[in-house]
């Protein structure tokens, strides 16, 4: 499979970045995974032209060529961080890149909950008519205590976390395939 991973954070140190980089490494044998950063996306200001700035166009192109998209979201103040919703606002306003695109949501948090509230909100956003993505239903990958989840080289240390991630990725691959048939 050919996936695009979106790192939903602009912080220099983010365990969501580590998580996606780990996914890229761990599944690199079978899947090709391209990662996108969103720190360079400018502040969304509803330009009259409806033209995507270069940073957004680049992400849109990466999404369009992919079979599926994996979004890693942090949770700030019980919801999706501004920097990620900002990117989604641009994508909704200037492109249809996520329309009918299979999406798998993951998230890592320092605390126990693993961004569950942000993921719930992100699901609602992606399901809305302006984005219209096809979010993998019935599956949530929540990585709690993310500072302890990786070693210094960014490898996951807990076997169950890895197993669970592999299961989720299998479901997602099937979901992508079943969507491609349509």
């Amino acid at each position, binding site marked *: 499979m050919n996936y695009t991973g979106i790192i939903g954070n602009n*912080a220099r140190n983010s365990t969501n970045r580590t998580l996606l980089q780990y996914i890229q490494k761990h599944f690199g044998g079978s899947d090709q995974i391209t990662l996108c950063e969103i720190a360079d996306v400018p*502040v*969304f200001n509803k330009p009259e032209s409806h033209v995507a700035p270069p940073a957004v166009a680049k992400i849109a192109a990466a999404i369009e060529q992919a079979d599926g998209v994996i979004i890693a979201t942090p949770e700030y103040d019980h*919801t999706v*961080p*501004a*920097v990620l*919703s900002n990117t*989604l606002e641009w994508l909704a306003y200037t492109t249809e890149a996520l329309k009918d695109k299979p999406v798998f949501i993951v998230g890592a948090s320092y605390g126990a909950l693993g961004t569950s509230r942000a993921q719930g909100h992100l699901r609602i956003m992606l*399901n809305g008519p302006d984005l219209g993505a096809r979010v993998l239903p019935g599956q949530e990958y929540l990585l709690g205590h993310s500072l302890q989840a990786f070693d210094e080289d960014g490898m996951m240390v807990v076997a169950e976390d890895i197993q669970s991630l592999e299961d989720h990725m299998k479901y997602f691959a099937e979901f992508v395939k079943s969507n491609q048939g349509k």
Partner: protein
Amino acid sequence: MKIIGVIGTNSANSATRKLLEYMQQHFKQQAEIELLEITDYPLFNESDDQSESALLTGDAKKIEAADGVIISTSEHNRMIPSSLKSFLEWMSFKLHPFNNKPVMVVGSSVTKQGSASAQLALRQTLDAPGLGAIVLPGNEFLLSSSAAAFDENGALKDQGTIDFLGTCFKNFLQFVKVADVLNGVDEMNFEPGTYSVMASGHNGKVPMKVTFSENRIENIEIDTEGETTGIADTVWERMPQQIIDGQTLNVDAVSGASDTSRGVLTGVAEAVSLAGADPDVLKKRPKPAKNVADEPVEYEADVVVVGGGGTGLSAAATSLQAGKKTILVEKFPAVGGNTIRTGGPMNAADPEWQNTFDALPGEAATLKSLMETPDEKIDPEYLEDFHALQGQLKEYLDSDKHFLFDSKLLHEIQTYLGGKRQDLSGNDIHGDYNLVKTLVDNALDSVKWLQNIGVRFDPNEVTMPVGAKWRRGHKPLENQGYEYISNLQRYVKEEGGQIITDTRVKKLLQQDGKLVGLEAENFDGQKVIVHASSVILASGGFAANTKMVQQYNTYWTKVDDDIATSNSPAMTGDGIKLGTDVGADLVGMGFSQMMPVSDPVTGELFSGLQVPPANFVMVNNKGDRFVDEYESRDVLSQAAIDNGGLFYLIADDNIKATAYNTSQEKIDEQVAAGTLFRDDTLEGLAAQIKVDPAELVQTIKNYNSYVDAGKDPEFGKDVFDLKVEKAPFYATPRKPALHHTMGGLKIDKQAHVLNEAGEKITGLYAAGEVAGGLHAGNRLGGNSLADIFTFGRIAAQTAVTEHEELATDATTSASHSE
């Protein structure tokens, strides 16, 4: 009643904005509603903290002062707009003005939902602990189909909608009063008494005693015995004062001493817990109020110096010796800059003194090889001096004398050759002849001048600082860098100079092309203006400003984002910016010096096991050696960068004994802290540092065989001492750290700052690391102290002379006009 209305959109013409503007008008009898825009907020980024900007602190203050807040939101993709979310993230990061604040949510949408989904999410967000607002329950005001909802005067058209908004607002005003009762929670109840805790200082634990009455922190006593003096003193003094005055733990760290500052806060927080109260409540309280007067503080001086390191203090002292009124402005709470961190030796050729020492084996060979350097390797302007040096060397080598040789010419040529470098694009650089000549001709005078001020040098030892190439180091008898700073500071004060600390210079003031002073801001945020006809920039380099180093770098293949520095955190290149703002030219900015064997996190040299290079065994993250450990700093640094930056110094029990920086107690502490690795086997050590055990064992086996053979066929190391064989084994993590930035403002030999046309900028002088051109591409160890005390003095001498000329001019023209 005072209410803040947050317009939750950055779009100029939206119903969200109209709705709040309408409320402001419509309810003006009941409450004063001040509208707050979020358009200018940058997108939140925790790695680029803006919490101290005027915009954020100003808005936070308004929210804190208000009785309640109304937030108006629109809906993007079923959520609140990212601009509003970003604003809330800023307000929940370091500032917490929404804590316990009554908030009313209203919203609108052009479609039917009326922002229902966004409002729901907004309520959840306001509940988050970083915000901690108290949101008015029920009373959901959802304005749908908003495009048609307002008339041309911006008033709502539908009477039913107006009435419902009125009801909601009335309920909110009632709610604000109820919330006041809830806010009683903020009141602290301590178990009165005195509690002992340990704060972390720079040198370990510091005992603290915190005394509480029923509702207040009454006293904080810190036992600072065993802590170093200097900047930490400001922490011990300032932080307890602020905590007690403001009854808050939301207190800023003291610049340059953030670890120690954090230690104090953690210590008091622990005491609060012991006294049975919740420290989190104190952490969320507003920062202590600063009493900022609107009027700037103004000073008059003949000469104003920017920066309180060795350069600035010697410039100030020189200006005072000439009888000039002198002010020195330092942005940190204490003077000292980088000078206070140095190991101490200062280069100056003093043959009379050096000749009393015996020559060391090998020194004659070094001189001979220098003498035989072919002319084509020497740039034309240095040729005449080089030939003269050849004559001196020939005479010395032909004689049968066995004393230590030196001369100004040797110092000059070594400084010049040491600074010759080529960058990645093939540009060559070497030291400006006039600057190098001025340095070597005056360095010894600087030593004598310092002695007169009170600095004591060790007459019995002529040292070679690391990377100095020759033994001409004058070493303070004790206290290293502190010896220079403490004496100069005392002298400046005694002579009536004024040192203003905690004050950051913002811009230089110019009138008719001449410097007339500077504008700064002090700790309280108050504007400070110093009127002076001469400004001396002595603010140091920019090794603590990684972004700036990356921006200019043309020498290293890579400068990591998280590279450490051996410098004071004050070295952020402020003076370079101040200079270029008034048209100064720059020179050599792409070159910088790295210290290859530094602590990966702190940049410090003296952590782990620092042993003589003959005993260095450096391995990369694969467990392989990668360089001749005896190489120069530049080669070691680049080799480390090529190998991913991080590497390890491997040692055994015997090599450990040659470490000159540590004690068994410190070693055990570092092993426990995980900053130094120790194991009884090499395999175990390899596992700890995550390299292949077989690979590391093979590497060490090979190294040991090279020690036996006295020859290293892999990397050509030829100076060996000990093998790695006796357990326990050690691995010290190391990484190159930024040590000195070579480039800076372009100056002439009198320390005038030059503009791009090569002309002097009248009244502006620069000296020390803020200036470039002298050391060019690389600097000899021991030459920066020679530089700062020589050019610091020269800058002041020039300024003083020209100040007198200016004064004479002014008198002359005044008498003409009579």
